[in-house]
């Protein structure tokens, strides 16, 4: 499979990365080189093989459903580019 410039722009939109016409052209070539490289996976017979879901065979750890952390609002917003009274500030999203 290969991608065209239109697909690259659609994927960039999905990934929320602004791309110029020039970027999209360049990325199309790069992505096709990578997609061409991974194409060889199609020759592997995977009939009856389960996809990997856990690298190490183990049960997922569970913890008790209790509050173990919190009251750190100031820490959480400390690195934000724009805040007001422990809220993150973003451009207006609701008219």
């Amino acid at each position, binding site marked *: *499979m290969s*991608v065209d410039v239109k*697909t*690259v722009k659609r*994927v*960039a*939109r*999905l*990934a*929320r*990365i*602004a*791309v110029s016409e020039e970027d999209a052209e360049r*990325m199309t070539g*790069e*992505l096709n*080189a*990578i*997609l061409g*490289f*991974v*194409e*060889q*996976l*199609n020759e*592997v017979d*995977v009939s009856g*093989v*389960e*996809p*990997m*879901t856990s*690298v*190490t065979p*183990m049960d*997922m*750890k569970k*913890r008790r459903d209790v509050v173990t952390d919190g009251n*750190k609002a100031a*820490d*959480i917003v*400390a*690195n*934000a*580019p*724009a805040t007001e009274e422990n809220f*993150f500030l*973003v*451009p*207006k*999203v609701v008219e």
Partner: protein
Amino acid sequence: MSDLTRLTISQARAKLRGKEITATEITEAYLSAIDRANPALNAYVAVTGDKARDMAKASDARLVKGEGGALEGIPLGIKDLFGTEGVHTQACSHVLDGFKPRYESTVTANLWADGAVMLGKLNMDEFAMGSSNETSYYGPVINPWRRSRLDTVVMPTTHQGDGGFVSAGGTRTQRSLDNAQLVPGGSSGGSATAVSAFLCAGATATDTGGSIRQPAAFTGTVGIKPTYGRCSRWGIVAFASSLDQAGPIARDVRDAAILLKSMASVDPKDTTSVDRPVPDYEAAIGKPIKGMKVGIPKEYRVDGMPEEIEALWQKGIAWLRDAGAEIVDISLPHTKYALPAYYIVAPAEASSNLARYDGVRYGLRVPGKDIVEMYEKTRAAGFGREVKRRIMIGTYVLSAGYYDAYYLQAQKVRNLIKRDFENVFAAGVDVILTPATPSAAFGIADEDMAADPVKMYLNDIFTVTVNMAGLPGIAVPAGLDPKGLPLGLQLIGRPFEEETLFQTAAIIEQAAGTFQPEKWW
């Protein structure tokens, strides 16, 4: 006193405990070495001098009382991927501009609890995506190793020596360093350079497809990627969560064992951290390997592999055989599919993990007319080319209609790769010996690799299988190529049998010796 930066961790540990030196002295020695070398090598992106001095002072107080921890007073460098409280943590990306976490990663917290001293944060490929440390927002790291050439010099008959070889006809051959700058490998290029150039006693690193072992091989250092689940991933900036593992880069096998012992732990904060006690890895060093079964996989003999890599591999086989190991030929039939499967799985996970960099909660924000434009502009300005490329691939392979063809197929192939290893281990193989990399270090701004991203990806051809299967792997220096550059061998072990790797790597180290670059910086 001789240069304190030349001491290995085990040597420094003995001298600190014996009160022959102080943590403050050795810390100052490293800080001034960094001061002198960093403009040339660019290994550190942040030096935490004041913090280092405070930590060293506290170590000295504990050492005086005889209360020192396992790493008391040992100065370390930390890869920029590890969250360090109040200290520069940006995964060497522009998108995390100014980020200083309010928490400490479990791995670094373990090191400080054992008394280690933090010298600063180490350069790396942006978000650990790269094999040359050239994708860093902070510029490339330079390998302290340079190619050298042998020149024949006609000597006056009365002189000889200076480290050269005297030949019968009054000439001698002399190695001279080439000026071309080489990459240290990646993504843990800053860690590898800092350890190799004596800018820290040891360093933390991480490995998603070879990012500890390839730079270790390129710089003549020892690097181990432990079994998936051995070191907590909590507080480490995530790249590909099912592949990422932390591990050390060190000057010798013993130092790597000492560091891993402190880094590894059982952590309730990481659901993939495995409930197994951490063994004393150092105790495995020096144990004989008589009767151990060493597998040699035929699939690792790839087309176009340089002669010196094959020769190195044969030397490694001979050393282990001489030490009493049984050498057996094995087959890992799905090896060639590991790299293509990796370039689906890793970008897919990365595209998901990196969705959080949106200009809202931390780091860079570029304003836009609405929130979507703000996201798009922030991410366009904040991520470098390689990172964008991988996010794009990941987004594409996970997008509607392509998930089964790419991601599901790759995860099935991944199970086949894992099964290859399981079959070999079930047949009694204890450890697998392979080359660590398909070449020695290459030049900065290599044109072939810049033109074709897949060429760069091929650097990880021998290491990536290990991440796909979640196994432990160690790179240990085994010799120099004809141009005087270090080459490494890789040992792959059964899950959680890191001790076997240290035990076997120590045999290779004993036969090959250790390697230091000639100082030019």
